[in-house]
């Protein structure tokens, strides 16, 4: 049989003992590149569809090996602060500076890996999946933006008897979504806002396709978990959550709704990629707030709040 295992994908993280991305103990493979531009995005590494270099200044020992390595001069030093500055327009993300950096101040954000390589890595924890009824989750970024790779990876997992989950924002063509859904046991489906105007304002696109795809997935009998990031001042109104719950209630294959409270841990990731974090200073929603939202959803669903 023809093997597609040399298909390559751009991966920015493979997280083991991932226990919040579907049932049991899982490995989550994070793919790079996403069409949405959510202002609160907590995985900024997943946004750009090309490899990048991250810089964590706290770890830097100012050895300047990176400067000597970068052939195109994309790295310079701010002499007053000794801070390294990466010219993002010049940087090709080749990663040679990362190899030269002894202190891990520089890191690869995004590396090209074949399906086979990723399979080998995720299979390392097969014993844990078996015991915990866990498996592999492909997330991102938007994994469906790397359609072939995601399809081949999930097919490969299924062929090995590993439970598969896909986390998607759903803003993709139905043709692509349904192709991957065929090799996916569970879909973690993100719904960010029920009001398409606000959706467009906060993510750059309207929600029509997303909601339509969710309905079609459900009609096709695909098990779904609806995930809602709860972002203060953006989508945390009781009204929006109520609408989301009502929408979810209309989908017959939704097993569960998850409310994911905003946290500020992403801020350092923005800094690492020299990007501005637009939600700086935002406080996570209070316990009371989450409890209240949970109650709203609870009338029709098994709801979990991830803390």
């Amino acid at each position, binding site marked *: 049989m023809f093997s597609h295992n040399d298909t390559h994908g751009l991966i920015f993280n493979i997280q*083991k003992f991932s226990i*919040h991305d579907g049932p049991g103990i899982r490995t989550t493979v994070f793919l790079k590149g996403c069409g949405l531009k959510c202002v609160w995005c907590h995985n900024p590494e997943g946004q750009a569809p090309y490899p990048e270099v991250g810089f964590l200044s706290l770890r830097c020992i100012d050895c300047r090996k990176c400067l000597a390595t970068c052939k195109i001069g994309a790295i310079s030093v701010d002499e007053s602060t000794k801070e390294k500055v990466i010219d993002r327009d010049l940087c090709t993300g080749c990663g040679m500076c990362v190899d030269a950096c002894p202190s891990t101040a520089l890191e690869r954000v995004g590396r090209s890996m074949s399906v086979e390589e990723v399979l080998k890595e995720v299979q*390392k924890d097969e*014993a*844990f999946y078996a015991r915990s009824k866990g498996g592999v989750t492909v997330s991102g970024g938007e994994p469906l933006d790397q359609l072939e790779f995601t399809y081949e990876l999930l097919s490969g997992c299924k062929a090995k008897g590993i439970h598969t989950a896909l986390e998607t924002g759903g803003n993709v063509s139905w043709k692509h979504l349904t192709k991957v859904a065929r090799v996916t046991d569970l879909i973690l489906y993100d719904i960010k806002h029920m009001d398409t105007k606000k959706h467009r304002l906060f993510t750059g696109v309207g929600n029509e396709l997303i909601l339509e795809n969710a309905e079609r997935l459900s009609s096709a009998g695909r098990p779904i978990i609806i995930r809602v990031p709860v972002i203060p001042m953006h989508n945390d109104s009781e009204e929006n959550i109520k609408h989301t719950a009502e929408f979810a209630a209309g989908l017959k294959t939704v097993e569960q709704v998850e409310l994911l409270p905003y946290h500020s841990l992403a801020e350092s990731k923005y800094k690492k990629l020299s990007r501005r974090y637009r939600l700086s200073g935002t406080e996570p929603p209070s316990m009371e707030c989450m409890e209240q939202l949970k109650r709203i959803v609870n009338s029709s669903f098994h709801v979990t709040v*991830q803390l």
Partner: protein
Amino acid sequence: MTTRTQNLRQAFIKKQWRICPERARIITESYRETEGEPIALRRAKAFKKILEEMTIFIEEGQLIAGNLASQPKTQPVFPEFTTRVIDDMDTFEKASPKVLVDEETKQLLRELQPYWKGKTVDEYIEACTTQDLPYAQDIRKAEELNVFARYGVRSGFGIFAANYAKVLNRGLAQTISEAKQALSNLDLSQASEAEKAHFFEAMIIACNAVMNFAKRYAAKARKLAEKESDLQRRAELERIAETCERVPANPARTFHEALQSLFFLFLTVQIESNGRSIALGRFDQYMYPFYIKDIREKRIAREEALELLECLFLKIASVWKLRDSAANSLRVTMYSNVTIGGQTREGKDATNDMSYLVLEAQKNIQMIQPTLSLRYFDGTPQELLLKATECVSTGIGMPAFFSDTRIVPATHRSNGYSIKEARDYCLAGCVVPVVAGRTQPWLYSGILNALKCLELALNSGVDPRTDVKIGATTPDFRTFKSIEDILKAFRAQVDYFINMLNNSLEIVRRGHSSLVPLPFASALFDNIMKTSKTISEKGSCEHDAPPLGWMVFIGDANVADSLAAIKKFVYDERVLSLTELKDACATNFEGKEDLRLMLLNKAPKFGNDDDYVDSIMAEVLRLEVESWPKPNHDLQSASFHIPMGKVCLASPDGRKAGEALADGGVSPMLGRDKQGPTAVIKSATKLDPENDIQMYLLNMKFDPALFRSKQGMEDFVALIRTYLDLKGFHIQFNVVSPETLKAAQREPEKYADLIVRVSGFSAYFVELRKDMQDNIIARTTFTNIA
């Protein structure tokens, strides 16, 4: 918890530890009276005198009687083993944990001390170490430089579980009859039999002494009952009196009698000897029949049984013995190990309601003793593991989990037990599988600084820190062509110290068997009547006598990480010469921070499921196991990773000079396991496919947040199950956030009862030394923020 056990717990926690001079005073008087008599009889008579004369009390509200020393929370002194405790008395108040000594006690102990000059086990061993041994000077040097240590030399036999079940079921009077029978079978016309006769006579005296000791509590309880105005308490005291009149002399008939009988046995074994790590065996197995009979006959309700169990556990928590000051600060536990779960002798699930009760009691009392161990096999119910997880999630670090899948076949293979007998194993010490009443107790462990052995391998046996020759002469490092050559030299160093340990073990054993034989503890072992020898003379051994101690290797993960870095940079990529690397280590990477970080960050590290370094770790362990004489007793744990790290130079794994080593067993070096707990488990379980290493330890630390959801608990259980299915040996957990630990450092008074898992044992965090505290804070915490 009931008000009773809450009050008992509070009363215990509020009190400070103190030294009690009473045992020392009585034994000195007894030894004076029996000079010239056979040693077994002298020991028995001294034991009898202590049990007859020591102060006894029954605590307000307690339902279990028995005390170790004259006041609650006091610790006795064992001058016949060592008088260092007396020398060090002034330091105890500043030690962690603090032990108070009042002036009167100090004066009394100092008055007694001269009598013991030249008579103690300690001095015997010291004398032999300075004169007799071919390696005597080497041991001294190695110990002074913290390369090698003998741990527990002066304590006496420990790491055993006596056959308590037999006495619970048949009574101690039965043991006396057996001893009398054995005595009458001796042919006393043979001069050689005289010693055996002394031993049996001593055993009879000792068993009688224990039975009479119980009767003293019966009388005490009766007296208290007479004066007691509270009717309920009066009834309790009368029940205590009846119980103590009955056991341990006679078979226990009820759960209460069984608990009381057990505590008298455990307590008096502790009073007889300075040894620690005296295990309580498969508690749920031998206690369950008593409990279920009471339940069926409606003598007791489940909640009452739980309360009694909590009373017993609080008594066990109060049984604590001093170490001399140096050791005191390192290992703050008694290892009073209680085992639950596992399989029956027939291979069926052994879990019963007592297993659950033990977990509940342990979770409720929140004490560092008893040490709780849970045996796991494929048939262990999920419910038991979830209950155990609840207990772990409180942060007390217990139970620790052990794999039958691994331990049963190993015990069968290397100790000569049948599979059925092997299925009956329990845990002693931190991680030692033994069969109660059968397995030869151990004397002490050698502790070997594995990273120092690597330094010695790279320096032809000379300690590069002090320029003193302390190891084997191995080839010059410039002749090494691969890490195999380095490993060969490393093996030679390990062999050298293992020889050292073996040579000294026999000396130490002779000291203990000739000066402090243990007639009472011996009476609780199965084969003693046949062999007519005490446990100090290996009287419990049926098969080839196993070694009396074992070697604990400290810092194996550092050795593996260092060798991986050498392999990668010196031999594979050739970006560095071994000379350059050695020089950089010798100067603590002075001016070469980039080199240090490269070694630290760019070479594979153990604990990340990376075969490149995991295979090297496996090789290091294999060499260590091979170096040890059969049967392969080998263990890697302990809390020596801090002092032993202090004497090591910077190492090729990027560790700076003096920093602590990896914290025990197959645990990765602090902060280097970056792939999460599943990767640590994978690394740890691929080390020993042939199941040769009998014992090792794995520490993990989890954020309490994991345990907030049912799914989190279930995932945690799945993690444990997978580890043990993959034949991991042992795993233990700390569940505490770094923030809590840091807060406890700042405000110790607020966190007096915060318990953490240290290394095969749990301890009160605020009682640990600062460097140990920092070390625990630095362990990788597995958390999961999506």
